């Protein structure tokens, strides 16, 4: 990691700002987004692969994009390690946060399907697709 970035010197000759790296990041972000869209549309048209795998791909791509934005655009990749760690370590709380709450959600889903007969009926009953622009169609309340 390049840790030669200071803030106390504002001299004109230090032009370490790298336009090329920025455009490279831009093209990477654009390419990832376009790729995501293409597979989303292929899935929508053909249902070619299982949705679970697709979702995994989307999450990985999203994290990759987040990494490039934070590291290059926000310049965190070029700050010193102490600073990087005060950002990166608290962000790890999200790992627990995600696992705990997704688990909770799916547990709630299982409980409802087992014990709440109304919810179970609702999840099995197909409704007729309403006409477009039908105002005030109130869906069933949770």
């Amino acid at each position, binding site marked *: 990691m390049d840790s030669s970035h200071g803030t*106390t010197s504002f001299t004109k000759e230090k032009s370490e700002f790298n336009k090329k790296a920025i455009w490279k990041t831009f093209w990477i972000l654009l390419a990832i987004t376009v790729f995501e869209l293409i597979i989303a*549309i292929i899935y929508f048209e053909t249902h070619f692969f299982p949705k679970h795998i697709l979702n995994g791909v989307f999450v990985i791509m999203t994290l990759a994009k987040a990494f490039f934005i934070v590291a290059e655009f926000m310049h965190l990749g070029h700050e010193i390690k102490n600073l990087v760690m005060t950002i990166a370590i608290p962000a790890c709380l999200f790992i627990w946060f995600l696992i705990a709450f997704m688990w909770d959600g799916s547990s709630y889903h299982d409980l409802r399907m087992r014990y709440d007969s109304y919810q179970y009926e609702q999840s099995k009953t197909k409704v007729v697709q309403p006409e477009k622009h039908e105002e005030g169609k109130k869906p069933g309340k949770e």
Partner: protein
Amino acid sequence: MAHTVPVGQKWWSGGRSPFNVEYGKLMMWYFLMSDAFTFGAFLISYGTIRFSSSSWPNPNEVFRTFPFIGEMSVPLAFVSLMTFILIMSSVTMVMAVGAGQIHDRKAVMKWMFLTILGGLAFLGCQAWEWTHLHAEGAWWGRNPFMNIDGTQSTTNFTNYFFTITGFHGFHVFSGVIINIIMLIKTWRGDFERTGHYLMIEKAGLYWHFVDLVWVFVFTCFYLL
């Protein structure tokens, strides 16, 4: 930067900033951390509700319109345009920061102006999308869309969509206001007087954060 940090530099022995960044910039980072947890809480709440629901509307069905082409179905095209606009405005923001580092006032003004335009274009797109969804009968407490498996869906979908994209849109809006203030300050020559363009860098951090959040909103609402 001009000086290189020697290996084994003792950062905590006093006499220098241990993080090697200016105070305001460090605080901007910590503010963004707290903001990230706010957005994270919103998105995780959305995820929890989605996991607890047996089915959910299909984003390819809901977000399939584009301005000026009538009812033609182009799934996700419009939101891709919005994503492109936001990434592009992030690039112009980095250019403004880079120009500030070499004290090129004219270039800072040019890039800040383009960044503001990008932000306004994004807000315009979002306004169009909200108006269109509202015309289709979607709003807080109203959901005209069926679940993907044809069952009755709840208002959770629209409630979360409008709340989270609205909260993000509000961040974009405040980012545009901050950028306009920075443009005016640059134009007045304030940063030439203080001797550095660090304010542009701090505004830039905020602006990239808005882009970062959009990456997650985009995935959670339009792809998954």
